[in-house]
């Protein structure tokens, strides 16, 4: 009995108390991005990646990412991001990262961790880890700390 006081539901009889829900943690976005609005961006990303402009592709995908989109849209968008990331040659990774700004590296790390959390990304785990290794060599733990604490998810 004595040890159990932490398990007492102190909100049980307090209708005003209200627990924090997942929705409370969503940042206050002003608008939401739809899949339709993202389509041109995804096409552009694809064409940049296939034409071999890896820096252009990574700069595009790390600039102004669709934070406010809903989960299925983010899923769709992430597919094209992953495609673009895997098309960059290993030897180019270091160079691409060198040409990114700090905020772009933050976004890139978000996509890397996102990739590690979904099956299609886990198949490309080696590539994602190679990216992460290079980023941490350049920026240290800063982008990872940002990723952990940021509620704007990709």
């Amino acid at each position: 009995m004595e040890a159990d006081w932490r398990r007492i539901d102190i909100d049980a009889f307090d209708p005003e108390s209200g627990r924090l829900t997942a929705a409370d943690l969503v940042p206050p976005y002003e608008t939401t991005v739809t899949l339709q609005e993202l389509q041109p961006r995804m096409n552009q990303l694809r064409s940049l990646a296939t034409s071999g402009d890896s820096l252009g592709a990574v700069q595009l995908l790390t600039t102004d990412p669709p934070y406010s989109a809903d989960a299925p849209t983010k899923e769709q968008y992430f597919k094209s991001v992953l495609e673009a990331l895997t098309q960059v040659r290993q030897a180019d990774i270091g160079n691409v990262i060198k040409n990114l700004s700090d905020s772009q590296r933050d976004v890139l790390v978000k996509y890397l961790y996102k990739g590690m959390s979904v099956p299609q990304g886990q198949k490309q785990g080696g590539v994602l880890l190679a990216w992460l290794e290079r980023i941490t060599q350049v920026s240290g733990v800063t982008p990872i700390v940002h990723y952990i604490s940021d509620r704007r998810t990709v």
Partner: protein
Amino acid sequence: MSFSNSKDKSVVAVYKLVKAPIYSHCFSQDKSILAVTCETDCLVYRVSNNTPPVLFATLKDHDKTITAVDISIHGRIVTCSQDRNAYVWEPLSDGTYKPTLVLLRINRAATSVTWAPNGYKFAVGSSARIIAVCYYEHENNWWVSKHIKKPIKSTINCLSWHANGVLLAAGGTDGFMRVFSGFIKGLDSKESVAGSPWGQKFPFGCLIREWYQGSYIHDVEWRSQMERIAYVAHDGTLNVVDYQSPVQSVNAPEGLPYRSLVWINDHEIVCGGYSCHPVLFSEASEGWKFAKNLDKSDNNKSSALTASGNADELSGNNDESSTFGISALRKFKELDLKGKVSTDVQESAHENAIVELRPFAESNGQITQVSSCGLDGKIVIYTI
């Protein structure tokens, strides 16, 4: 025992006081009295120059961990605790303290407490998504607590009063830094906020402004004469805001978050946190930037060694474009050959995270020394 095990000149004194984390500490106005939290007690020390602090009172009335302590300009100590209460400790002439319980009317832990500049009211932050502003009512001989609830969504971590004693900045785990009005009728006068750039009317509990940071906010502090607020967050940033311009943000050079900050002057801030040593930031024409580390063990042999090792590995990888797996394997092999993992010994004065910084000495409006407390049970005084 007052000693310094650091070669760095910025460390003035190190007091290893207790064997538990010190979550909060405070010096009295004349720096002769030091109060620290230690588990469920608040320990009060007498401090004089160049001698170790002498314990002279133990404030024992809380029955759960004390989370914060503050001393008013009149020498009254206020403590708040996870037991959901606050006590005001009135100093008596014989060196003891007379406790008065303050009923905060909250159902979760109290996390932070701070006296208003005039010393007649204080604010308590809590996990109950409430800020309790407490003041003394003579008629009832009782500390009254008034609540600020909306629109707080989560635990309040930190509070700071504006010098006018009305505006109250608060940061918490919902990722918002907010400015509320803590105006108490009969205690505060409207003249104190006349002409304030933050608004015209300041009824109690009114939300004046809010900023979204998105990560836990660990500490917030007003720079009243500039009408600016600085706060540190768990994403490792120091941020400075005012009533009109957008947030100015700067990253911690080591990436680890700060737990506390102190304004040194109008254009300098010192921060301390998980990197265990204070870091000075300064404002230049292009914005806020890192200025210098205090008490940091650099040119340490082992860290230089690992750094060069990394550099070798980096260039090696570029030449051979080897995959991650092979480089990881090689790393383990190298470690195996060396037969040791790391000799990187922490040489800063704090051996664990700094949780609170406070101004200690001041001359000509400039803070010259700050004190800190840490999870290692030490109080350290640094020269800026």
